[in-house]
């Protein structure tokens, strides 16, 4: 063993570049396969993610949802429903900046319950003469916590200041509506930033209010939990945006190619390995003549084979991962986001391929040794080895060196074939990635006589989304507040309850920016 190691070391030392050439050839071939396999895994993971996101971005509505079922699933939501159904105006308080005036508005009892607004005392207002006040607003208004008292306030409405008197029937806990800056600005409520407290004072009845539809958003998988009619056709219609089917076909084809060409690659690796054995055969012959035993000769080959396998595995794995990142990088540069996933089976397959082919080459030679007489290695008396030309470090030269001798043509053909195959295999999946994706298409529909909508945004692997929206007409528009053409600029209309729109849209979120081009958003919303 000592002698084998020493001789192998010497051999590698003397033929370093050639050895590197062989390792490089094997690594390139096997690394290509590894990259292709890994790429498949990434493509699959990416497709899966996209599939989820497709659903996630499928804006759908459950109408005529069952309130009790919504309640049952309340914990699934990020926040409860928006309880506010309309705004009457702001209430002036002495010594307080107009911007900080609390608002007075109507509310929806069911939604309030859903929103988890605690009732600290009394009850919720039942008609337009009764109010419930948020605890902190009560303090702001410098009112006693006395139920039944008459509260007179100056209500600033767009039509002017009105003095109104209400009977205080209840005190609620703090209720914070999430409302984005853009939403509040659209509402004409300037200068408020989220989160905003609206309205602070709840008044019964529906006076002057835009009727709200409580809209809850959840994962698409939840849609059937709310009763009613889920998957309302065409609310936002999204037509197979990412062509997952095409992708799957391309992916299957790629796998088939990879497996098929593994055979070719095994031959390539085998040849490269065999070449490095062949190289030594003559000298093994010489050494056999001067007293090397078969076992020592086999040990020598084994040493070399194991070394070659180890180096090829390390380099091949590195190259494979490198290729993968290159391919993914290219896709990312082209604007597609891509998940990188490592698959143990791909590495296993790669390792089997490399070790299998190399050890096969060496083992078959070692086996032959068992039968061979020393002289069979090539005549010891044959012509002396010609001196080789100096090495160039460029790959073609290394390859040329590695594929010298009798195996040259075979090897060159193999590597050419392999390169084509690996490229085809990798690019099979890769090309599928270049298929242009359809843009989202959306349209609006209006639904009447609907008490509860469950509107579904987001989902998939993404954050849970917003909770509610408002409509000008009962059951009218549960989507993004303020975007409906008919709602724009509706006077005094509070269509709050939206969240930051970015969050709605998978791909516009922080870390998933390019899964779907943000440009598509304008088709959706």
């Amino acid at each position, binding site marked *: 063993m*000592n*002698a084998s190691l*020493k*001789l192998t070391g*010497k*051999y590698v*030392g*003397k*033929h370093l570049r050639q050895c590197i050439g062989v390792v490089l050839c094997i690594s390139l071939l096997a690394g290509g396969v590894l990259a292709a396999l890994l790429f498949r895994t990434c493509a699959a993971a990416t497709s899966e993610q996209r599939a989820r996101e497709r659903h996630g971005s499928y804006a759908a509505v459950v109408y005529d949802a069952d309130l009790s079922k919504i309640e049952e699933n309340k914990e699934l939501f990020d926040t409860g429903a928006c309880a506010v159904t309309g705004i009457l105006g702001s209430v002036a308080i002495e010594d307080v900046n107009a911007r900080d005036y609390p608002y007075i508005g109507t509310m929806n009892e069911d939604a309030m319950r859903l929103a988890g607004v605690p009732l600290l005392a009394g009850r919720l207002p039942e008609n337009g003469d009764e109010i419930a006040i948020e605890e902190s607003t009560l303090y702001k208004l410098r009112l006693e916590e006395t139920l039944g008292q008459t509260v007179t306030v100056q209500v600033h409405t767009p039509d002017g200041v009105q003095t109104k008197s209400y009977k205080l029937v209840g005190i609620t806990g703090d209720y914070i509506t999430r409302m984005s800056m853009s939403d509040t600005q659209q509402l004409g409520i300037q200068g408020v930033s989220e989160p905003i407290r609206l309205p602070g004072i709840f008044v019964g009845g529906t006076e002057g209010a835009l009727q709200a539809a409580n809209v809850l958003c959840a994962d698409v998988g939840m849609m059937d939990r709310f009763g009613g009619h889920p998957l309302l056709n065409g609310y936002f219609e999204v037509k197979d945006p990412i062509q997952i089917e095409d992708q799957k076909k391309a992916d299957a084809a790629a796998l088939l190619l990879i497996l098929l060409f593994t055979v070719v690659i095994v031959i390539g690796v085998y040849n490269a390995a065999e070449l490095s054995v062949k190289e030594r055969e003559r*000298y093994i012959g*010489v*050494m*056999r*003549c*001067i*007293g*090397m*035993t*078969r*076992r*020592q000769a086999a040990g020598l080959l084994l040493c070399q084979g194991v070394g070659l396998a180890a180096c090829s595995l390390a380099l091949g794995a590195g190259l494979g991962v490198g290729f993968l990142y290159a391919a993914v990088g290219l896709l990312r540069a082209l604007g597609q986001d891509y998940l990188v996933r490592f698959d143990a089976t791909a590495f296993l397959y790669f390792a089997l391929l490399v070790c299998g082919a190399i050890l096969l080459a060496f083992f078959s030679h070692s086996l032959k040794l068992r039968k061979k*007489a*020393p*002289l069979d290695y090539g005549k*010891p*008396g*044959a*012509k*002396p*080895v010609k*001196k080789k030309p100096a090495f160039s470090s460029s790959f073609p030269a290394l390859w040329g060196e590695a594929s010298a001798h009798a195996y040259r043509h075979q090897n060159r053909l193999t590597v050419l074939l392999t390169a084509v195959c690996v490229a085809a295999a990798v690019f099979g999946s890769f090309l599928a990635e270049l298929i242009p994706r359809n843009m989202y298409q959306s349209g609006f529909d209006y639904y009447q006589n609907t008490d509860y909508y469950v509107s579904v945004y987001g989902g998939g692997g993404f954050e849970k989304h917003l909770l509610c929206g408002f409509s000008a007409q009962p059951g009218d528009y549960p989507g993004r507040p303020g975007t409906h053409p008919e709602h724009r600029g509706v006077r005094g209309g509070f269509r709050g309850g939206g969240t930051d729109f970015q969050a709605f849209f998978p791909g516009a979120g922080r870390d998933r920016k390019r899964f779907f081009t943000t440009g598509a958003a304008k088709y959706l919303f």
Partner: protein
Amino acid sequence: MVRVEKLSKTYGSGEVQVEALKPCTFTIGDGEQVAVVGASGSGKSTLLHLLSGLDTPTSGAVFLDGVNLSEKSDEELSLLRRRKIGFIFQSYNLVPELTARENILLPVLLDGKKRAEEFSKAYLDEIVERLELNDRLEHLPGQLSGGQQQRVAIARALINRPQMILCDEPTGNLDSQSAGRVIGLLNDFSAESNITLIVVTHNEAIARQYPRNLTLRDGTVGGDLG
């Protein structure tokens, strides 16, 4: 002592059958120096290969100190070649990635650690000195002249203190001056250490230097001249 009994070798079979060595019987004593002469293709190399156990005879046997080589396992034959027989080839057959020193020590290396420890450095120095390789020890074979390479091969053959040295046209690739030197060295070592020396050559002049000549003609060992 080498005893050859009805030794023959036939390559191939049927149409392509070649009788490289026809049955022959002879004995070579310890320390004897013998030249094997004959035209190209007359079976000289075949004979040497059989003598060293590199090849198996078709019939007959080679006895080395009374032991039949045919009865030895491959492993035993390898050890025999390593320890008792030195082989010198026409084309030197040095291992190209090893330096001259490493080539010389190759049989010792093959013999493993234990033997390597037994091996005396003084002996190496002595051979090297005699072969005038002192300043060439760290050179690779490719950096040596033919004569130098063959001298390295001689050193390699001598390193395990063999009982017998077999040379297959050791001077075939050398100019006459180098050839003379190589033959001289071989003869000297053989004489001093009582090493049996069998030199294959088709060079009449060289053959004449040896007290005994075995002449091969178409596989037949002819007149044992001398």
